[in-house]
Structure formats: C-alpha cells, structure tokens
C-alpha cells in the first residue's frame, strides 16, 4: 500500500531526534515549528473563508427536495 511504502522512507522513521538536534539549532527548530503551525492553520482558514460552491449547495437543496417529494407521496394503504 502507498501509505506503508511512504512510511518506510519517512525521514522521521529513520532520522531520530538526536540527529536532527545536532544539525539544527534549537531556536531555528522552534521558529520553523511555529511557522509550520501558523501555515497549517492559515491553509485551513483560507478554505473556510471561501464562498461555498453553488453546485454543493444545490446538491443539498436537491436532497431535501427529494425527501419532501418522497414524504408527500400518498399512502397507498389509505
């Protein structure tokens, strides 16, 4: 599976913390993690702020209409 394949080459699997901390000053690591955190949140927020596509809203309306139509069918047993 692709997921497992990627896991096998994941740098975090083979490159332990010790190696990373030797190569990177702590402050710059903290800075990078802060930027990462902010970047991830902004990436997510950017999408939240987009207007909803019409076709998605239309789909919900259609589902509700279909529901209404089903429930307004006359009961054959009446």
């Amino acid at each position, binding site marked *: *599976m*692709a*997921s*497992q*394949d*990627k*896991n096998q080459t*994941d*740098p*975090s*699997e083979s*490159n332990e*913390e010790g190696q*990373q901390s030797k190569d*990177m000053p702590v402050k710059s*690591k903290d*800075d*990078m*993690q802060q*930027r*990462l*955190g*902010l*970047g*991830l*949140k*902004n*990436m*997510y*927020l*950017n*999408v*939240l702020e*987009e207007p*909803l*596509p019409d*076709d*998605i*809203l239309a*789909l*919900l309306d259609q*589902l*509700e209409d279909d*529901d209404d139509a089903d429930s307004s069918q006359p009961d054959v047993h009446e």
Partner: protein
Amino acid sequence: MNKPRALPPSQFKQELTEAIPHLRAFGRSLSGDRDVADDLVQDTLLKAWAARDRFIAGTSMRAWTFVILRNTFFSSMRRKKFSANYDELVAERILSAPAPQQDPLHLADLQRGLMELSDDQREAIILVGAGGYSYEEAAEIANCAVGTMKSRVSRARKALEVILEEGRFTAASDGHGNLTTTALENIIGAVEKIAS
C-alpha cells in the same frame, strides 16, 4: 434505554451546511486538490444524507462527516478514484509572515510537503495542526488510539520540517507518485514472477 434522537430534516440540513466549509478544508488538505476535495465533499454529503437517521442529535456533525469524508477518501485512494495531488493554482500564496531573515512559507510548499507524508501522518497533522482538533477528537475521527494520534502528529511535524527545510520533494507530491509506484511495482512483480 432511550432511543437516540434523530434531527428533523431541516435542522439536519442546517448542521450539514455549516460543516461544509470544514469538510472542504479537510478534503483539500488531504487530497491537495480543489476539485478532488469538492468531489469528496459531494460524496460525503450524499452519504451523510442517506445515513441521517444514524446521526445522533447533540453530537458533532463536523466530526461525524469528517469520518465519512476520510473513509471515502482512503477507500477511493485504494481504488484509485482519487489521488493525492497539490493545487498549482495556489502556488504563490504566502501563508505566514516571516521574520525578515526568513524565507516566506508558501502554501504550495506546505501542500506539497503534506503530500510527502504518509496518509496517516498527513491526516493527523491536518486534524490537529490545521483543524484544531484535540488529540482525543482526532483519534476518534481517524479510528485510532490517542497515543497513536500523538505519535503520528509528532512524526508528521518533524518530517514536514525536514522536507520543507531541505526542499525534499518527490514525485509523490506532484500527483504522479501513486501511478509511478504502481507501475514500478507491477514491473518488479512481473520480473520476480518470471525469475521464479
């Protein structure tokens, strides 16, 4: 014991509508592609509507639909209906204001970096790091133990940092990784079969 109370259709629709922006954000981060994400959201809405009797009033609609979306995504990935990609349209967007001496963090780089992670790690860091879910909530959505979720997030953060620092992108992040891997696996499989 009382039977769980289902929501009236209008209220269900209202809550579902409120979850859509979050579904789009989760889907886009998972797949790296706007169109794929919106297809995923539509599939999710259809499935959620069909299963609305099973949604329990008072519980989180967002978490419930996230489970549907991620299950749809991962099962479709296995069937190759969707493939993880990154959105070139956002290539120049800058996500965080950098310190003067730092290079800006571009959305495209971050999105491509996410695509380099394993599916499990990508999902974990999106839920916790981007979506703001607690480890407990994220573990419930991803159907794993809380400790596993913590470990995935931690590994994802470290891996993403290394990828972005070193600019270590592979074909996995340009949408061809899955196809290439599959083709390669097929060839190796065929060669091994012939050799045996």
